[in-house]
């Protein structure tokens, strides 16, 4: 069961700053003695359109925090970030650009 996920999207100078926090153990092979548990895919969408596709590994820190920048952007744009881990668990969060 996925833990809390939180995101903030704010207009900066000419771009939209997106900061997303996710709860996940991101447990390595070494830590789990061969049964790693980590997020593998990350997708960022703006108003339903995919703009970033991320593939990440067990070398990303526990409880990952990512920052992205979107070109332009306007107040109210709908940003969605979703993840999928190596066990098939998923989570997602949405926010409007402030």
């Amino acid at each position, binding site marked *: 069961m996925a833990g809390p996920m939180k995101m903030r999207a704010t207009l900066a100078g000419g771009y939209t700053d997106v900061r997303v926090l*996710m709860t996940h153990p991101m447990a390595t092979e070494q830590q789990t003695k061969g049964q790693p548990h980590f997020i593998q895919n990350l997708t960022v969408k703006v108003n339903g359109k995919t703009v970033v596709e991320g593939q990440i590994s067990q070398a990303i820190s526990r409880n990952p925090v990512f920052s992205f920048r979107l070109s332009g952007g306007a107040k109210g744009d709908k940003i969605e970030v979703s993840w999928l881990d190596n066990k098939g668990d998923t989570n997602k969060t949405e926010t409007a650009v402030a």
Partner: protein
Amino acid sequence: MRAIMGSAALALAIFPAWAQQSPYADYQRMTAESAPIELFELGGEELWKRKQGPKSVSLEQCDLGQGPGELKGAYAGLPRYFKDADRVMDLETRLLHCMMTLQGRSREDATKRVFGNADSPSEMELLSMYVAGKSHGMPMRPGTSHPKEKATYQLGQKLYFHRAGPWDFSCASCHGEEGKRIRMSELPVLFKPQYARPLMATWPAYRVSTSSVVTLQWRMNDCYRQMRMPEPQFGSDTTVALITFMTVNAEGVPYRGPAIKR
């Protein structure tokens, strides 16, 4: 973790003026900007609002010093004297008080698991993150005028220098001289405001080395463990006195937390 550069060599190479500018300034700034703090604040908020205990009541009417349910600035005003308990309390002892009085929980029940871990922070840890977050940016002004507040400060001061245990340690054994460190961590001299301030402004915190939330009650408990002394009771006069001593020494510093630590 395998071979890292030899601490001594690294120290000499990079930190000729040890106590001046921290070599970790960039690291601390960048981690602060991308710390998962809010996740724990959210967890604490949920617990604050959750009905628990035999009375099936939330903590929302808990008086942390600014009035029932008033969270803004509450952490910045702690520790302080509370008339209803007739003692000085820090955040965690006050939360425990509310769990017992408002929610009707027994001390045993409420303190069953006060310190959590990476997989599962404790209730106290999450609540501490949430409440402390509501004081972000505000100057820390613990109570100092009430006679019991003064007495608590003095007890804390005595305890800071009191040597005991099989190794004859006191807090001052490690935190008593400027320019000292353990491996790569600087040891702040907590009876001097210039060192107490940046430290007390950053608790509770998310600790990256253990991926867990740490609070001041935990820190007191763990320091006593490291000094090979008996485990202090959660919220005991000892722990509250030490926390009071250090917080008063830091008086006036804008609260920067909840923070992120190594």
